[in-house]
């Protein structure tokens, strides 16, 4: 547990979190306007927190889990807007809640102590590799919400909309997931000498990729005839992502090249 009430960085995160939480409450109400405004305020504050961090450490702040979650918190709002505008996926109260949940580890769990980059992380591929994954994870989180919606409202009028929303979100996120994997592999070749090292984190990232790959093939075979299974596969993929993001890094069972436990 790392509280950050003694730093500007910490306060920026806490105020952004508060905005997201209030936005969640506001968006549950009848009038959506105050909630929408608070959601936007939370976004601006999370951007400020990220830029402040960048300025403070002097390099792209995607090195440790604190910075990764700080970045993730900034991505949810633009994604909500994009999904609503172009993919017919509604931005609901739950999006703001995701923003709050994503920022929680940055605010309370991980150490924010600026760190100097060890030789292995000094590569231009570092930022795009991590950034592609971060974006993919937030998109897949939204896909999972759509999948939950499908499971809840199946058979009702809205069920089909959620199924299509899930599919569109996975279509948006899958290229990013693949890009993260490919960039990581390429970087691995340059830094470690191998594009694939059978490291636990690599294997779990492959597992999440394979689940979505399976989703596309399954959906190709059955179309919308098995919507419940389609949704469950997407939720399984997100479970694999959570394991990749947290467990593979933190648990001692998975000591490996990607371990940031310190």
């Amino acid at each position, binding site marked *: 547990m790392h509280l950050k009430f003694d730093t500007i960085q910490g306060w920026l995160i806490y105020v952004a979190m508060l905005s997201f939480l209030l936005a969640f409450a506001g968006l549950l109400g009848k009038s959506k306007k105050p909630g929408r405004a608070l959601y936007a305020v939370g976004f601006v504050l999370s951007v400020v927190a990220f830029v402040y961090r960048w300025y403070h450490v002097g390099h792209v702040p995607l090195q440790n889990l604190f910075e990764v979650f700080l970045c993730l918190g900034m991505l949810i709002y633009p994604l909500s807007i994009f999904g609503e505008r172009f993919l017919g996926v509604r931005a609901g109260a739950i999006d703001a809640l995701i923003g709050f949940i994503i920022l929680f580890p940055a605010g309370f769990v991980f150490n924010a102590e600026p760190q100097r980059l060890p030789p292995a992380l000094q590569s231009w591929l570092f930022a795009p590799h991590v950034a592609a994954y971060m974006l993919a994870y937030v998109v897949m989180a939204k896909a999972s919400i759509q999948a939950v919606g499908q499971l809840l409202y199946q058979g009702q009028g809205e069920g089909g909309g959620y199924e299509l929303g899930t599919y569109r979100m996975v279509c948006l996120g899958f290229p990013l997931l693949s*890009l993260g994997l*490919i960039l990581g592999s390429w970087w691995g070749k340059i830094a470690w000498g191998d594009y694939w090292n059978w*490291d*636990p984190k690599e294997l779990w990232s492959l597992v999440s990729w394979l689940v979505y790959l399976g989703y596309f093939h399954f959906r190709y075979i059955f179309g919308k005839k098995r919507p419940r299974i389609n949704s469950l596969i997407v939720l399984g993929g997100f479970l694999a992502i959570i394991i990749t993001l947290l467990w593979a890094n933190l648990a001692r069972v998975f000591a490996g090249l990607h371990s940031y436990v310190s």
Partner: protein
Amino acid sequence: MKQLRQILLWAVLVGIGLLLVLSVLGSFLGDERARVLFNSIPLVVFWVLLLGLLSAGLIYFKRLIHSAGLLGIHLGSLLILVGAMLGSDSGHSLAAMLFGSKKIPHGYMQIYEGQTSNRILDSKGKTEIGKLPFSVGLKDFRIDYYEVDEPWRLIVESALVDKESHKNKWLQEHIKWTEGQEVAIPFTQARLEVLQYLESARPTYTGDTRPLLEITQADGQKSTFTAEVGQELLLKDPQVRVEIMRIFSNLKVQGTGKGHKVINVPGPPKNPAVQVKLERAGGETTYQYVYAHGQVHGQEDDEFKLRYVFAEPDGAEPDPNTGLPAMEILIKYKDTSQRVWLIVHKNQTYARLPLIGLLGLEQKDDHGEHAHPRQLSLYLAKMQGQIKDYKSDLVVQEEGHIVDSKTIEVNDPLHYGGYHFYQSSYGSNKAGQWYTGLSVTSDTGLALVYIGFALMAGGMFWLFWFKPILVYLSKRRSDAS
């Protein structure tokens, strides 16, 4: 046909599921055992079947050929699989069997500065597993460090005798000081005050700066003479001729027992000493080593004591060229106080001040005469930042000619003759000679993997991102018109 396609699709689902389960299993095994698992014979069969499945897909599903995006993704996957199989250990053994290829898939090289090598060792760096058809030389190796906030720190080091192991337990503590303010010296009752701190200084001497040999006789009478090779002094009562034989700026004993050697190691004068010859009236001759810092070695004499007085500076003055600090401090203990200088000399990374004698502390310890005495020293020591980079200047030689050269570092390997050379480790031997550790990897199949990556990524973004955007834009245009 339709049935075949149905079977293929189900086979794809089974294949994906199987790979998924194996990956989860592999993650629990750790990277080394997972590598073995995925390279085992049953898995080789699995990879070949997967390859067949991808090829069958491209043949029997017209969509995979007609849609550029789907073609890129599936062809890309196929190329990655083929490339990976060619580059694997098994792929290399197969190439050796079929075409007599001598390429080594993985290995390690250790090259000392100024030397060249073509020997490939196993991953532990122990056994030779092959030779390169060319050789790689290391011209220079260097490490860059990050800068530290307070590069020179005032540190107290103390050795306490551990009651159980009877070994010295070394403890260090960093003193945070401000000029003109008194602070406690850890591990002691004493206090110190930094009187002045010079960031870049040089030592100053008054009087003779030549080293001296001091002789104190049993009756307390002292005589000194310049410690230079060939200088001698005749003592009366008892009659002894003292002659300086050798001078050491940094004496070191190599080996033990009868075969030991006393040598002078070039570099900073860490252990200045002289060797003296003592000739008694009766013709008895003995040799002794006298150290500037501490004890005498050799046959000791009760009748007189020898001391090697190595000229110590009595102060320091600012000198912008040295980059070495000096600090004048006042040490207070009980009712006494003493001014001392800590001066970092050329080629040194610290200045040391032994505190036991200075404070008059009890030097004897509780574990008998033979136990190592406790240590207590004040250091002005240079702090090393975290490693920023390590770099090796490599040259490639073929038949005695330099054919390529590159400065490699982590994330920037050398590529030559079908191999990549990665900066992987470094170290030095006992003589202080640096070596670089290179991990060597064959590039067989790599081009296919990279083309596969590009096709797969390109195909995916085309299929899922750009094509829908184009469709959306053209629809908007047609709606508008």
